[in-house]
């Protein structure tokens, strides 16, 4: 009898040497452990943005600090400075070298809406948070976190040297780079991937709507703030005309002033904390859609090759090795994608729970501040008993 030890019951060969296929199992194992930080062995943070002014350009660098116990790293701790285009380089490299995986999105390079000051404190802080999130998502990934480019990004003193040498330095990745081939068209997506595709379409559509609503609310709030800022002082002007009512009217003016401050904080929080997360997820779903397309191509290639073999009608029971390889690739891809999707769904659920609860919290805090302000003026308005 043939040796079946290398095969699963359904006859699919288990390619233990492929890092891609093993990832799905690893994914599942780590997913649960992921939640408590105990098992984590790699910690990356982005902080301390610094502005660099050169003759040619002005840019911001961020400090990337790594703490790890992994054997892949020579030292337990690294600290390097990276700029946005380095992150961009990393993301491109990851996309090239890990085509079967969902690569987290980077914040948009250019801010399209309005003329935003790229060097303003708010902008830099928002971007820092997004970059930090990007690296944390890679760090948490069982496959991506072991990527050599990532390792280089975290540890290299001179990243530009690596960038110039390109693939020569990491030749072992050479094969997987050519993984994706174009020119094939998939007839129909398998049901489960079609469902993911449909889900992503609706998801990004709804998120786009939420993004627009949130922006509109911020806009309305700012317009409300403008009117409120005019409203408060009118009471103060009135107070100056009055004798007995002077104090209560002044109090009212101050109260409205406090409400203005609270409102300002609310819309700032929404702009800085709420909108960037929404944007990240919109980009995330775009990345996911790209991975789905790549998967389709791999499957299409396989099907085309299989068809070609069938046409030859050669009476050979064995499928040629390159077709077999193709099938293997499709299966690896499917497994990786499903695992990543599941991981992403889990992250998404946690992130949105946190995000939306945060939004509710900010609104509650806003109303609490206003409540305190309004309650404080009641004693000013009540007749002091028999002071006459």
């Amino acid at each position: 009898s043939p040796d079946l030890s290398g095969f699963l019951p359904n006859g699919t060969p288990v390619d233990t040497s492929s890092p891609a296929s093993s990832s799905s199992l690893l994914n599942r194992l780590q997913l649960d452990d992921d939640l408590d930080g105990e098992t984590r062995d790699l910690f990356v943070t982005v902080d301390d943005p610094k502005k660099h002014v050169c003759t040619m350009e002005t840019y911001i660098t961020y400090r990337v600090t790594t703490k790890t116990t992994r054997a892949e790293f020579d030292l337990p701790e690294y600290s390097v400075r990276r700029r946005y285009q380095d992150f961009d380089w990393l993301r491109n490299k990851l996309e090239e070298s890990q085509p079967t995986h969902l690569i987290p999105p980077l914040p948009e390079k250019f801010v399209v809406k309005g003329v935003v000051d790229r060097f303003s404190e708010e902008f830099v802080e928002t971007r820092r948070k997004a970059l930090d999130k990007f690296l944390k998502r890679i760090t948490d990934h069982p496959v991506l976190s072991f990527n050599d480019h990532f390792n280089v990004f975290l540890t290299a003193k001179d990243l530009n040297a690596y960038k110039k040498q390109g693939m020569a330095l990491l030749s072992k990745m050479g094969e997987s780079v050519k993984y994706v081939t174009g020119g094939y068209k998939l007839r129909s997506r398998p049901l489960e991937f079609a469902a993911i595709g449909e889900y992503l379409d609706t998801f990004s559509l709804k998120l786009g709507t939420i993004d627009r609503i949130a922006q509109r609310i911020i806009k309305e709030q700012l317009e409300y703030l403008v009117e409120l800022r005019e409203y408060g002082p009118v009471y103060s002007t009135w107070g100056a005309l009055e004798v007995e009512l002077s104090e209560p009217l002044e109090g009212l003016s101050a109260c409205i002033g406090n409400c203005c401050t609270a409102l300002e904080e609310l819309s700032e929080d929404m702009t800085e904390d709420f909108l960037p997360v929404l944007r990240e997820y919109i980009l995330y779903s775009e990345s996911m859609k790209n991975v789905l397309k790549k998967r389709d191509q791999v499957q299409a290639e396989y099907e085309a090759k299989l068809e070609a073999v069938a046409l030859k009608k050669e009476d050979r029971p064995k499928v040629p090795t390159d077709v077999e390889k193709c099938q293997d690739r499709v299966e690896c891809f499917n497994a990786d994608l499903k695992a990543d999707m599941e991981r992403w769904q889990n992250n998404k659920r946690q992130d949105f729970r946190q995000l939306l609860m945060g939004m509710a919290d900010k609104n509650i805090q806003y109303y609490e501040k206003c409540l305190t302000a309004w309650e404080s003026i009641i004693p000013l308005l009540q007749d002091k008993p028999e002071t006459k």
Partner: protein
Amino acid sequence: MWCGRREGRASSSLCPAWLMLHESLFSSSEKMEDCLAKKMEITVSEAEKRTGRNAMNIQETYTAYLIETRWVMRAHSQSMWMLDSLWRRYSEFELLRNYLSVTYPHIVVPPLPEKRADFVWHKLSADNMDPDFVERRRIGLENFLLRVASHPVLCQDKIFYSFLTQLFFPFFQADSRLKALNATFRVKNPDKRFTELKHYSDELQSVISHLLRVRARVADRLYGVYKVHGNYGRVFSEWSAIEKEMGDGLQSAGHHMDVYAASIDDILEEEEHYADQLKEYLFYAEALRAVCRKHELMQYDLEMAAQDLTSKKQQCEELATGTVRTFSLKGMTSKLFGQETPEQREAKIKVLEEQIQEGEEQLKSKNLEGRDFVKSAWADIERFKEQKNHDLKEALISYAVMQISMCKKGIQVWTNAKECFSKM
């Protein structure tokens, strides 16, 4: 055809808040004993749209308001033709107010509610036939009647009384003195107190109208902020359809967003009442200015009389001494056409002397009248100030209470939404 009826008599206890306020103000004064508002319950209980022909026989649509009166104490003798309810339209209220302001120039006559909706946030209709506007005007007209009925002087007016209880009440036209209010004139010696008061009423009017304008804009913007949140309700619900674990939480959070968006309607409707309270004082500022204007007119009258008397005295002296101090046409004619006879001169002097005596008496009585006016006007202004401070404090308290309840509602809705999000 719609008609807005107040639900029963019980709710009328809600509106005479103004009345109670007056009682608290005047409870110690004796005048209050005679106050009509204490003896009679006055309500404007209904509004009805009507169509009829006016004096020019042109078809017109107007709103009539039902005035209902009820004696609290039966002791008062009641005439046969007295009605306990009758319909009046806004223009009749205007006639009544005109009459009061002419008859009692020294009194800050309570203002009528606005003729046309003004300073409203966009959601409210500016149509005079709009049920909401009519309802707010109904409350305003009732408030006006209660203000008059609880005023120590105005409440005793017979015509006011017949306005409430008799179908036909004596018609009256604004007299020439009122018309003169619009003419421009300048007094030489204005009373500093009235000048200051006029200045105050100008400032008050400008600050309240500014306040009302900005408040309407604030209300508009707030409305926008709340309503845009309503979109979350729909999108959360749509999104929930594609989610598994998150679905239920999103769906119910969406429901809370709908509740949040809808809550602003009631909040702003309630706030409109505060705007109406401010508006009354915007119009009160005008009434206050009218008193100042009438004082000025009186002062002007007095000054003119004094000036007339001085010139007559001078003429008399000239005739008596035969000297012309100042160049005059009379002097010229007498030079050209020869001197008058002594008899003619005597007769002229006699006429002038009579006129001087008459003028002096007139001036005396005008001075007295003026002093009386100042005295009673100032008393009413003091009363008004007290009423104003009290009313506005009450209005601001209720405004603050509204804001507090809005904040509490906001906290409640977001806490509920948070609860839903936490279950995702």
